[in-house]
């Protein structure tokens, strides 16, 4: 909402200066976006100096001028003026400028094969004089220090631009703003002058509001103004319209716009001679169409509120008028409309047709239904004053009477809500100045809500009015109440924070990427999940919710590889979506490592990152987060985007159905499809939701501290075993021989090939044996050794290597 201080003072008697007004507006909830001179078309013309004027290579009468416009670089302009010469100070118009004389908009253009960026102006082009023989010659002493500055001083009055919240339609007019300011003590609201307008004759175009279920209009007021002379608006009116940032059109249109911004009362003027017999306000039928004042043709759906005559639709009520009945300079007789349209109907129609106008914006928020006559009178007076003519009696048709909103307000609610007290006297004064009708019934105030405040329906709205006008600075700052109702984080939230930092501590950079991704990449990772398209994506490559974290992670990994980074570890913790309903999401960690370990190290051997690097990272992170390593079970079934032979799933224990993590190499097909160029690419993922919450706190989990001081023994075994036999199983068999005595089993060598039969591998383990009761003698150890060998041989088909 834009207006000038002068305009405000038409409605407000105030001693406040501009800054005080600005501050007050902010303090009562009318946020000031800016307070500056309105931009002018003349702002673009700047003082410039010709540095070098040389002859155009292809035209003797043209010159090629290097221009200093006060910036780092000079500008090249083609100029035909004979007086263009080195050192001349003149006026430069950059591309985009509108030349006052012919209203032409400048663009970058080629003149005889040389590009010209803007032009140098003559006095006649700027409407300063009739001098058109050459460009302006500015006096050196006056302008030499002003190169780059605006040539025309902007003398227009400063404009206040308010950002009005959607609950305050009344402040979409200057008078409403003045009323708010007056309530807040910034002056006195001026009383509207009584109109002494003389009416002649009746409004003899019949108006009917059809009683229909979907009728979007409840009141239609109008008057006829006969014998007008439409013309350009006088300067004061043009200035007002310009200060709104709009273009003056004609007196009649400008007046209706002016009244809309002045009183927040949208009006519409029809050329009465173009109306076919009568006005019918009705709901549209699907397929009806009309040409609107924005020069677009609209095809209507059912139940849109239209103003029509016998020939068809004239306009969309409260949204936009039509060209068929539009006023022109030749218009002689006007029908002026001032109506009430229902916000819901306006909003529905404008959304369906995607139209946004100042009138629509206002009706959608709620116009004062009691301002019908006021608007007609104010506009008629101005039209008569500027365009002449005779005004008919006002004709107001309604299908519904306005019902007052009454609120019984207990002033105690104010203190209860805000924490501070305002005396009843002051409270009543504020409400009265805002337009409330206040009467007292013991402690309760009976309030009649002003008709221009559709936002006020209940007591809490009254609290807001009072505290806003009184000032938020009166609210005390209480010490924070420290009472705690429950622990800050639950188990999974703690797990989130812990795993996040645990993974990062292994050398991964955390990233945050969009929750949406490119369906083309997503489908490589979505497995059996359904694709979840976004109906209105921000762009076609962010068109689905991600089913996995990897699509984005790999997309950005590639970008970083393309930037020249070789060894990259990245991870993200966040949602992966499994369905389109709320809650169909899992909290996942996705991590990628690319490149080498120890690249260009003087003492370590370079090697590519491999599956066992990420396996370590994932297992260590899980252990740090509290999962018992001894319970963890690994298997080799993984999603299809993993290398089928070089990846594994991690289970919290052997009975779990869902893998809580996967790790391994990414499938070579995916690397190829995404065109990722790296020496090696391994990934892991953890699903936090699949981690089982331990029922016990750590204080309960810590078992008794026991250790054995008896001597421990180590034995090495090597077995020849089927190639596909899993080392994990081998270790488990050994452990199960005697869970008490066998303290640990470590695989220290695996190989195939030389001396090993086809389809077999050699696997060597180191077993630590220790008793908690005694020192084991040779006999005991020998027994265990035999048991280990026989168990392995019988359960796995392995053979001990001799």
């Amino acid at each position, binding site marked *: 909402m834009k207006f000038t201080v002068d305009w405000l003072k038409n409605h407000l008697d105030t001693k406040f200066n501009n800054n005080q007004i600005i501050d007050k507006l902010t303090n009562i909830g009318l946020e000031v976006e800016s307070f500056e001179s309105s931009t002018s078309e003349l702002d673009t013309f700047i003082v410039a100096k010709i540095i070098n004027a040389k002859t155009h290579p292809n035209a003797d009468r043209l010159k090629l001028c290097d221009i200093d416009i006060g910036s780092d670089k000079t500008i090249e302009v083609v100029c035909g003026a004979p007086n263009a010469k080195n050192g001349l100070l003149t006026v430069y118009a950059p591309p985009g400028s509108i030349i006052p004389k012919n209203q032409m908009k400048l663009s970058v253009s080629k003149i005889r094969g040389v590009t010209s960026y803007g032009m140098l102006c003559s006095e006649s082009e700027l409407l300063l004089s009739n001098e058109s023989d050459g460009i302006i010659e500015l006096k050196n002493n006056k302008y030499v220090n002003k190169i780059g500055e605006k040539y025309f001083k902007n003398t227009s009055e400063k404009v206040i631009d308010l950002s009005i919240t959607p609950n305050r339609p009344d402040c979409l007019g200057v008078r409403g703003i003045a009323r708010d300011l007056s309530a807040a003590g910034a002056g006195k609201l001026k009383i509207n002058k009584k109109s002494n307008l003389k009416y002649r004759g009746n409004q003899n175009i019949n108006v009917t509001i059809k009683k229909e279920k979907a009728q979007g209009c409840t009141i239609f007021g109008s008057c006829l103004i006969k014998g007008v002379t439409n013309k350009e608006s006088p300067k004061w009116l043009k200035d007002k319209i310009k200060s709104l940032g709009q273009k003056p059109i004609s007196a009649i249109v400008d007046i209706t716009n002016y009244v809309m911004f002045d009183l927040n009362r949208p009006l519409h003027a029809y050329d009465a001679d173009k109306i076919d017999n009568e006005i019918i306000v009705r709901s549209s039928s699907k397929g009806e169409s009309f040409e609107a004042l924005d020069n677009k043709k609209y095809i209507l759906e059912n139940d849109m509120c239209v103003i029509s005559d016998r020939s068809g639709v004239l306009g969309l009520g409260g949204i936009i008028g039509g060209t068929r009945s539009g006023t022109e300079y030749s218009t002689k007789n006007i029908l002026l409309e001032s109506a009430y349209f229902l916000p819901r109907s306006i909003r529905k129609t404008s959304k369906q047709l995607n139209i946004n106008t100042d009138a629509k914006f206002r009706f959608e928020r709620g116009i004062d239904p009691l301002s019908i006559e006021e608007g007609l009178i104010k506009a008629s007076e101005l039209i008569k004053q500027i365009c002449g003519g005779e005004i008919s009696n006002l004709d107001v048709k309604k299908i519904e009477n306005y019902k007052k909103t009454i609120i019984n307000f207990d002033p105690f609610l104010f203190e209860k809500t805000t924490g501070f007290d305002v005396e009843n006297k002051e409270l009543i004064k504020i409400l009265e100045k805002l337009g409330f009708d206040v009467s007292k019934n013991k402690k309760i105030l009976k309030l009649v809500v002003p008709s221009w405040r559709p936002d006020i329906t209940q007591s809490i709205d009254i609290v807001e009015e009072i505290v806003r006008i009184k000032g938020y600075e009166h609210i005390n700052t209480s010490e924070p109440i420290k009472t705690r109702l429950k622990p800050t984080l639950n188990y999974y939230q703690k797990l989130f924070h812990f795993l996040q930092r645990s993974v990062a501590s292994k050398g991964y950079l955390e990233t945050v990427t969009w929750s949406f991704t490119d369906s083309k990449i997503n489908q490589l990772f979505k497995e059996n999940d359904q694709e979840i398209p976004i109906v209105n994506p*921000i762009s076609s490559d962010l068109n689905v919710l991600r089913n996995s974290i990897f699509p984005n992670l790999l997309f950005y990994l590639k970008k*970083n590889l393309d930037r020249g980074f070789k060894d990259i570890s990245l991870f993200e913790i966040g949602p992966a979506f499994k369905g389109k309903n709320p809650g169909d999401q899992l909290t996942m960690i996705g991590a990628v490592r690319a490149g080498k370990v120890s690249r260009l190290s003087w003492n370590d051997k370079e090697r590519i990152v491999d599956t066992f690097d990420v396996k370590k990272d994932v297992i260590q992170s899980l252990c740090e987060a509290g999962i018992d390593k001894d319970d963890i079970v690994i298997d080799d079934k993984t999603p299809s985007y993993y290398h089928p032979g070089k990846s594994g799933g991690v289970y919290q224990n052997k009975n779990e159905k869902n893998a809580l993590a996967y790790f391994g190499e990414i499938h070579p097909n995916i690397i190829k499809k995404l065109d990722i160029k790296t020496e090696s690419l391994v990934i892991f993922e953890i699903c936090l939701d699949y981690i089982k919450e331990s029922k016990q706190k750590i204080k309960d989990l810590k078992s008794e501290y026991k250790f054995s001081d008896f001597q421990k023994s180590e034995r090495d075994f090597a077995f020849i075993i089927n190639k596909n036999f899993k080392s994990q199983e081998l270790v488990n068999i050994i452990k199960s021989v005697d869970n008490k005595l066998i303290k640990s089993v470590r695989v220290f060598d695996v190989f195939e090939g030389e001396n090993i039969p086809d389809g077999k591998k050699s696997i060597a383990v180191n077993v630590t044996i220790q008793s908690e009761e005694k020192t084991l003698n040779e006999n005991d150890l020998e027994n265990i050794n035999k048991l280990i060998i026989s168990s392995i041989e019988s359960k796995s088909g392995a053979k001990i290597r001799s």
Partner: protein
Amino acid sequence: MSDIKKIKDNYIDKLNTENNIEKVNNIKSELFGKNGIISNEFKKLGSISVEERKKLASDLNNIKDELQNKISTKIQEIETKEINLKLEKEKIDVTLPERNIEIGKIHPVSQVIDEISSIFSEIGFSVEEGPDVENEYNNFTALNTPDNHPARDMHDTFYLDNNKELLLRTHTSPVQVRTMLKGKPPFKIIAPGRTYRSDSDQTHAPMFHQVEGLHIDKNINMGHLKGCLNYFIKEFFEVDKIKMRFRPSHFPFTEPSAEVDIGYEIKNGKIVIGEGNKWLEILGCGMVHPNVLKNVNVNPSKYQGYAFGIGIDRLGMLKYGINDLRAFFETDYRWLSHFGFDPLDVPSNYRGLSR
């Protein structure tokens, strides 16, 4: 006896010039081994008279001590020499680089969320979460923003179906609805998380982060709201004083509503929070609207309280001098390394919010 002395002197001389540890050990066994010279002398003692034995034994013991001392000093001497020599040989250039350090980082958004959670934890708030996909009811209608409400235009919403029933939440406020629907008052929660609006330019990203706050109890008023936010802002920016301004505003789900500005100034090209005469809008808040309380089955005549919503990314940008919001989500390795935080740098009250 003089023979022994001679032998002794002879060995002492030998030992004096000997530098080989093995040869010293050989001498040791020559003298004290099973059939060593000195050992044999002791054996002879049994065959002589008592008088002579006493004298001879005493002399022999002296000689034995002298020789043994000499041997052990010599061994020590040689060993020291050898160790010194070895150490000198083993000297390396310790200025050569260590093995690779792999430095991971925590994203600024995560760090700021942890900072925020830590601060609110101090004054008794717990953390709640809600899904990223919401239904229309929780995101709008329950929050007193019915379908025909113009306030909906301020939220450019991503939809997942053509009926506009399912959407990506445009703010964290639906967590208020979920929290209150599933529990009983009092409520005292914050809800940080991802939020989405179909808006994208230098200062807007289609995804960003908000933290919602909600405190509902019997007598929570606007003074408490002011106190809570004043405390939070001061703690977050780690300043002693903060200039703060509550401005009336409008949100459908709070009433009265306010926007909060903090004072700032630009010093040497950097923004300084808490001082100066410029205002920066940082959050929206207000008293939870009675209509919202009714929608979640809380009796507004018994319970009342405040709610607020803060842009997390923006807070992070202000605190850590980050200019471009879009860069938060572009995964540039350089940016992540530069603005990321050490994983061990966990914001906490006792250890300090930030280093």
